[in-house]
């Protein structure tokens, strides 16, 4: 957190001064490359502080608890549908972890490289549909099928990335959206009956290992999802603290300056773009196994927007924020759907019943409120509260996510 202390809270540029010229962007490198406000800062090269060690220890303990969860009998009424060892609860928790992992890959795009992509679902969907179609049509075991899908995703991400990175900022958002939409349309059109159209595809289980099939084995899938989340977290942490991650963060802050230094912003951005596409496609493959089917929603732009909402809810620029946002959103979505179908809501008068029976209405409104009033998201707010309790001055933590967002423009 040493990097945040010299953040001046009044550092907004005067109206219009830096609006058009990239060189006019404020700040002369006064924060480190990563700037993750929540949990684990990645720029603390000089010496590992006690807090950082404590954060990692807490993380490890949490993972250990999650590993043991299917063997325990823990009830969380209102959060989980049943005791923690039941398949329903494990399914929901596994979904939370996959969504948290997917949000982490989106964090890699937006929080690290400042790329506001609206086409991330394309690669998630490519993982889901690619693996489903390959398993359906080819008689090969799971791992080679996953490898083949990965190959397709790598090519796809390179093609789309190299075209859409020719523009940046908002145009980049629009272009990635268009590509993702093309993918979504193709899936909806159901060419040769391969994608199943609106119905989706059911997973063919002939070539799958037995321990991944069936409701009885939900806890294996749960452990798989947990492993994916931990792996993605470690990889994202590693990328953020690598040279490429630092270069990407520098590109986000001031592309021109990076170019003057002799680095190539385009290649750095493409690297991050492809890497996050690969990671999210693997998550998509596990999602397919967990859901035992491919659904059109997995490739729709709604999913990208969901990931964006998770990242913003959790706090832009923070890895823990992305994880918390993913879990929080998934559980809230599930609970609100249950609420919408409950008797209590059905008996309300129309003016209350209609908004309350639409989970997305509540989530959308919540999202607007967070953007307006809690710019740091959940993680940023928690950190600000913690800071206030320790009596430290300054609200620099809240400013950082805003700056990251502005860098993406």
């Amino acid at each position: 957190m040493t990097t945040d202390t010299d953040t001046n809270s009044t550092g907004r540029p005067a109206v219009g001064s830096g609006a058009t010229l990239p060189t006019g962007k404020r700040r002369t490198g006064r924060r480190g490359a990563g700037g993750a406000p929540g949990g684990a800062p990645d720029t603390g090269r000089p010496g590992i502080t006690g807090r950082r060690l404590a954060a990692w220890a807490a993380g490890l303990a949490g993972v250990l608890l999650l590993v043991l969860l299917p063997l325990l009998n823990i009830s969380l009424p209102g959060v989980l549908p049943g005791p923690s060892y039941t398949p329903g609860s494990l399914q929901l928790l596994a979904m939370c972890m996959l969504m948290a992992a997917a949000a982490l890959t989106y964090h890699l795009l937006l929080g690290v490289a400042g790329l506001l992509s609206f086409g991330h679902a394309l690669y998630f969907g490519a993982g889901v549909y690619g693996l489903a179609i390959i398993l359906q049509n080819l008689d090969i075991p799971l791992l080679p099928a996953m490898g083949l899908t990965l190959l397709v995703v790598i090519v796809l991400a390179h093609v789309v990335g190299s075209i859409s990175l020719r523009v940046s900022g908002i145009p980049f958002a629009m272009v990635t959206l268009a590509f993702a939409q093309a993918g979504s349309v193709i899936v909806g059109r159901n060419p040769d009956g391969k994608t199943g159209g609106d119905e989706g595809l059911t997973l063919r289980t002939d070539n799958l290992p037995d321990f991944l099939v069936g409701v009885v084995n939900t806890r294996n899938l749960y452990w798989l999802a947990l492993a994916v989340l931990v792996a993605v977290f470690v990889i994202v942490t590693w990328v953020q603290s690598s040279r490429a991650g630092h270069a990407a963060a520098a590109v986000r802050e001031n592309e021109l300056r990076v170019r003057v230094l002799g680095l190539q912003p385009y290649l750095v951005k493409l690297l991050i773009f492809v890497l996050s596409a690969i990671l999210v496609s693997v998550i998509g493959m596990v999602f397919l196994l967990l859901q035992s089917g491919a659904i059109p929603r997995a490739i729709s732009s709604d999913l990208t927007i969901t990931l964006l909402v998770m990242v913003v809810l959790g706090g832009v620029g923070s890895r823990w924020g992305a994880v918390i946002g993913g879990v929080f959103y998934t559980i809230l979505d599930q609970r609100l759907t249950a609420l919408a179908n409950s008797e209590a809501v059905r008996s309300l008068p129309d003016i209350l019943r209609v908004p309350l029976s639409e989970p997305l209405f509540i989530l959308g409104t919540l999202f607007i409120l967070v953007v307006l009033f809690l710019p740091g998201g959940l993680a940023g707010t928690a950190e600000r509260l913690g800071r206030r309790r320790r009596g430290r001055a300054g609200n620099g933590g809240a400013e950082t996510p805003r700056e990251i967002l502005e860098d993406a423009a």
Partner: protein
Amino acid sequence: MSTVILLLFTGLGLGALYFLVAAGLSLIYGLMGVLNFAHGAFLTLGAFTGWEIARRAGSDNWGIFLLSLIIGAAAGAAFAAFTEFVLIRRLYQRHIEQVLITLGLSLATVALFDGIWGTDPVYIQGPAWFKDTTDILGARIPNDRFVCIVAAVMVLLALVYFLKKTRYGMIIRAGVENRSMVTALGIDVRKAFTLVFTIGGAAAGLGGVLASHYFGYVSPMLGGSLLIFAFIVTVIGGLGSLTGAAIAAVAVAVLQQFANFYLGGTGDFVVVLALALVLLFRPSGLLGRTA
């Protein structure tokens, strides 16, 4: 030959709808740098408002149809002005957060429309003349296409007149060109922001009513599906350029129709391909300023 003409007019009708959405998007982006995801919601609200009027006051009537156009446009304009005034205004100069706000708004409103009008499409009927066809060079063109085209051309002319001849139009054009200079001259650009949002919302609301007649139904997803193509049109035409949006809207829609017919339903795919080509060879769009 008659097929070509039919496709051409269907494409022009669709292009008219694209233009009505893209015009507002392009102006809003050009002036404020905001990518307005809620634009589809303005359109859907206009469409549902028009549908409610037709349902309550009788559909087979030109007067009612014109009324539904006006009220639909007014609903879109009011919603857009509200959005700008209450939500966007708090976050000036924070472009991405403005985008996020419009995104949240589109999520929330689509869900709300789902709750009010249901997820299934509701079918709409216009004056009986809409169902007839007009014979042009052997092609039988459904009449609702002409209504869309005429309306879009009128909106285009009105917008061009407004932008070129009126004081506020000039402020908007100057703002698109160089906002900081306009501010430095002591002009309050914020009024222009609200105005641009209102105009864009009105055009989208009008487009919504027309789209409901063009497609024959209204659904909460109507705005979202048109919005994606409007985004493509805006990028191809050049962000901030009204003429570019008009040209690109027609080009994209006609291309889409022809590809759908001759290349086995690949229209959407061809449009994305066209977008990729434009980006490769002219990243700023057809009539966009060179970045």
